[in-house]
């Protein structure tokens, strides 16, 4: 069952009407098929219109949509022979971040990313995609492995943020993230990150200090959640939609700010409406980015990656 968002209500109503009509087609009435066609066209038009001008707060909802394709969906469709590799060799295996080697369009790669889960059971298993220090330490370990075997790295970012808990603090959440950023900036292999849903603060940048940063059309990437920002600066969580505007967290904003290198278009009505199409487009974009980086030698790659991040924020908006 597709979950409908508040602003999709008119679309949901039309779609349920279509559903009702479809049940009647058994009668063989020709007018009904025609009616369904008309309604479907209307739905498509409405979806196109709605999704073409989503407000930042609506983008936040789409980016967090429970039916949106997640890490496992991408890996399942894009990576052959995926071999997940577990554990940080120090404390635990953190299922909020999955990492492993596999084959992407012919080439061996390392893929890492947060998995949010798709139902109650998997959400709890993956801790809603909120990783702990052991998760970020596993990433460091795997990135070093990738460097040793000259495997390009693909990071799929989808997290509300790193997990805020007592144990996570005790085991050095901050240090784990800092070292993860350091590792991203150090490795002499191509590194491409795609923000596939939510890019939540430190938990996201930990695996996104990359040569190329792609963002899905309706994904978001922010220093703080709009709710968190609203509660601090407006002292009122309900001002989250205002905060979402002020923070400039949409893919389009980030492209303009020079943080995202490329926006990957989503199917009409968002990635959650067509997993296969969405994943295929992301796959193509990743392939293009990796093929551009493949020929470059490691030292140059690392140098350029650093130069790119040294420039971050030095341009103002035009």
């Amino acid at each position, binding site marked *: 069952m597709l979950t409908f968002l508040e602003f999709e209500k008119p679309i949901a109503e039309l779609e349920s009407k279509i559903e009702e009509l479809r049940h009647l087609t058994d009668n063989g009435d020709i007018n009904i098929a025609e009616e369904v066609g008309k309604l479907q066209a209307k739905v498509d038009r409405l979806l196109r219109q709605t999704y073409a001008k989503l407000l930042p707060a609506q983008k936040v909802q789409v980016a967090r949509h429970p039916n949106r394709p997640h890490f496992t969906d991408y890996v399942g469709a894009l990576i052959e022979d995926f071999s997940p590799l577990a554990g940080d060799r120090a404390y635990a295996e953190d299922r909020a971040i999955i990492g492993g080697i596999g084959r992407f369009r012919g080439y061996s790669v390392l893929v890492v990313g947060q998995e949010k889960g798709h139902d109650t059971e998997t959400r709890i298993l993956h801790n809603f995609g909120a990783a702990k220090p052991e998760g970020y330490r596993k990433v460091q370990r795997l990135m070093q492995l990738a460097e040793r075997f000259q495997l390009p790295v693909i990071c799929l970012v989808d997290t509300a943020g790193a997990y*805020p808990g007592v144990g996570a603090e005790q085991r050095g959440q901050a240090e784990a*993230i*800092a070292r993860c950023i350091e590792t991203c900036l150090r490795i002499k292999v191509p590194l491409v990150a795609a923000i596939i849903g939510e890019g939540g603060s430190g938990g996201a940048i930990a695996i996104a200090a990359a040569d190329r940063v792609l963002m899905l059309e309706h994904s978001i990437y922010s220093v703080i959640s709009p709710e968190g920002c609203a509660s601090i600066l407006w002292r009122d969580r309900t001002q989250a939609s205002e905060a979402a505007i002020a923070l400039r967290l949409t893919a389009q904003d980030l492209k303009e700010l020079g943080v995202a290198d490329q926006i990957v278009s989503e199917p009409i009505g968002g990635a959650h409406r067509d997993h296969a199409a969405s994943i295929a487009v992301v796959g193509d974009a990743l392939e293009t980015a990796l093929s551009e980086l493949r020929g470059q030698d490691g030292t140059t790659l690392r140098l350029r990656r650093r130069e790119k991040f*040294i420039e971050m924020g030095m341009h103002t908006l035009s």
Partner: protein
Amino acid sequence: MNWLSNYVRPKIRALVAPREVPENLWHKCPSCDQMIFHRDLEENLHVCQHCGFHMRLDPLKRLAMLFDDGKYETIELPKAPIDPLKFRDQKRYVDRLKEAQAKSGNADAIMVAFGRMNGMEVVIAAFDFRFMGGSMGVAVGEGMLAAAKLAVLQDAPLVVVPASGGARMQEGILSLMQMPRTVIAVEQVKEAGLPYIVVLTDPTTGGVTASFAMLGDIQIAEKGAQIGFAGARVIEDTIRETLPEGFQRSEYLLEHGMVDMVVHRKDLRPALVRLLGLLRYRTPAAEVVSLPNPDHEIPKLGFETAAGPTPTSTAGDPHSSRPEP
């Protein structure tokens, strides 16, 4: 009412009530509420003499306390874009910036200075918590890069003293990008073979902790400082429990293996001098002079000894006048 309550009682009250004390003469310790005379406070480096509470220091006091004879040169930081997002909440960010600049006298939340510690050239970057909670935006990132550049150019170690709530929300994603940016700054210092030492002070949290502030070759924490990634309230809301005693304090981090040492403020300068000396002058001084000196003495600056912040106790250090190896 009668004469007693209207006239006598106020009179008595006025006599008994504590007199208004000039604000600049007496300070109240935020921890134990005891009054501290301003001269004692200065002498004790803003540590309460009654309970040992370490008060927050502005960067001017911090730099004066760390460098030899309190002398140093600050460097002018490169200009960074102001208000890149045209951010406004209930107030405009540009107005908040102006207020913070007026209040602190600084352009942003970081100061970078060059000077000597026990004769050794050192670059120190100190944060100003009064400036929007020491938050890290593009200008602070710029400051860290400038500090790293200066350290490399001068072949001097870099000491960073953060005091920051984390990334500066008003600069949105660009503040988050200062995390990799400052990590690169640190990397440049390390690649030059120079020591990078972090002195965590109260408070150091969020994106600052999760970037340059946790990457020191040596991590020192001032006593009782709050150091962590997530804010205490956020954690409480997540786990729905009260937090353990001393959670996210320096001593707690030491206990959990997250810092190398916790020092009292008065021992900070001696500790830095000793550590930098060990990392910088790695071979016996005897190699430089023709005869080994039997009286050669490496300054012992144990935490138990009350070595003051003045360099007098190490004036006879043979390393201070030693040429670069």
